[in-house]
């Protein structure tokens, strides 16, 4: 698959019947080229802005205001169209891009610290494994005590769906069950455990997720999803002897990413 790593992704949005996004796209492209910022700009309609998820920034080309549910920064790009305040806008744009580039990095290793990794754990069943992952989240101050029950309830309610791929379960609860801060906890199991999934059993690794909203953990979860696509990395984690070894695999992988 084509990497889209270094590109800075911008959405240019205007109302459906309007043409302003097209003009603003051209202006942005030439301006960012002048500043050697590789970018990929896509045009959208205003009502799509709320659901955008993998863009780095949204530039509105119209008088309407729109917010984004994933917390992507939204700028009003009309100065590029009208020319009024264009200089200030360009200055703000460059500043924002720098901020975002800085913020985007190293998120997975921030969400998962060595003390929230347990290697080669022995657990009796899936409930105990989920409880252990939840316990690490609670002890780290990321979630309230009740969050653990929330994780168990979700597993009960939706059966084996938390086994997201062969060998890996990702138990989590709804944000309102006591999620305070975004974070992850990881445990690998010495003896694989059945979670009741028709294809993906048995489970060798449990990744507990705590997310108070849809936004803060997005980069980390994207990194995690890419990590889990790499069979050899997943194997390394499955069989790693201790938590530091697991962390090192993740940290080394993260360095190769450019999300």
């Amino acid at each position, binding site marked *: *698959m*084509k990497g*889209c790593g270094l590109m800075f992704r911008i959405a240019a949005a205007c109302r*459906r*019947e*309007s*043409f302003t996004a*097209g003009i603003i796209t051209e202006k942005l492209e030439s301006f960012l080229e002048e500043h050697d910022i590789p970018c990929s700009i*896509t*045009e959208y*309609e205003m009502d*799509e802005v709320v*659901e955008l*998820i*993998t863009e780095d920034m949204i530039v509105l080309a119209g008088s309407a205001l729109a917010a984004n549910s994933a917390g992507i920064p939204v700028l009003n790009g009309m100065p590029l169209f009208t020319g009024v305040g264009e200089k200030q806008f360009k200055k703000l744009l460059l500043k924002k891009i720098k901020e975002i580039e800085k913020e985007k990095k190293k998120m997975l290793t921030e969400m998962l610290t060595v003390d929230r990794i347990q290697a080669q754990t022995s657990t009796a069943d899936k409930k105990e494994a989920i409880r252990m992952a939840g316990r690490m989240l609670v002890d780290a101050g990321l979630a309230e005590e009740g969050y653990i029950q929330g994780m168990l309830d*979700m597993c009960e*309610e*939706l*059966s*084996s*769906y*938390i086994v*997201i*791929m*062969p060998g*890996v379960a*990702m138990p*989590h*609860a*709804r*944000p309102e069950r006591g999620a305070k801060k975004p974070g992850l906890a990881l445990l690998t199991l010495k003896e694989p455990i059945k979670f009741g999934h*028709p*294809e*993906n059993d048995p489970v060798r690794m449990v990744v507990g*997720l705590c*997310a108070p*909203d*849809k936004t803060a*953990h*997005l980069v980390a*979860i*994207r990194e*995690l*999803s890419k990590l*889990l*696509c790499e069979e050899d990395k997943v194997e390394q984690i499955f069989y790693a002897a201790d938590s530091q070894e697991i962390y090192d695999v993740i940290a080394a992988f993260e360095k190769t990413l450019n999300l």
Partner: protein
Amino acid sequence: MARKERLTFLFVCGAGVGSSMMVKMNADEIFRNHGLKVKLISSDVTSSKSNKADCLVTTQDIYRLIKDIDVKEVILLQNMVSVKELESKIIPAYEKLSAEREEK
């Protein structure tokens, strides 16, 4: 400039913050690499039915709970992180749905 109405894909998971986000982000990259423009929405189980979509993307367990949802296509995933599996199911669904739309 009149733009065509885009096909909408709805991603549903238990809480709307975990696996549906992973799948939605992967789908975004896949469509992008194919140069296709679509609309992607994610949701948790309880609010999924309030969304209007052409295609639902979820897992067997979740589909059982929302079977009567009004969509034209349903994609059920085994592996929520596999880009390969997603691509092999979502691109044919896109082609089928856009062909049906053309016929109208």
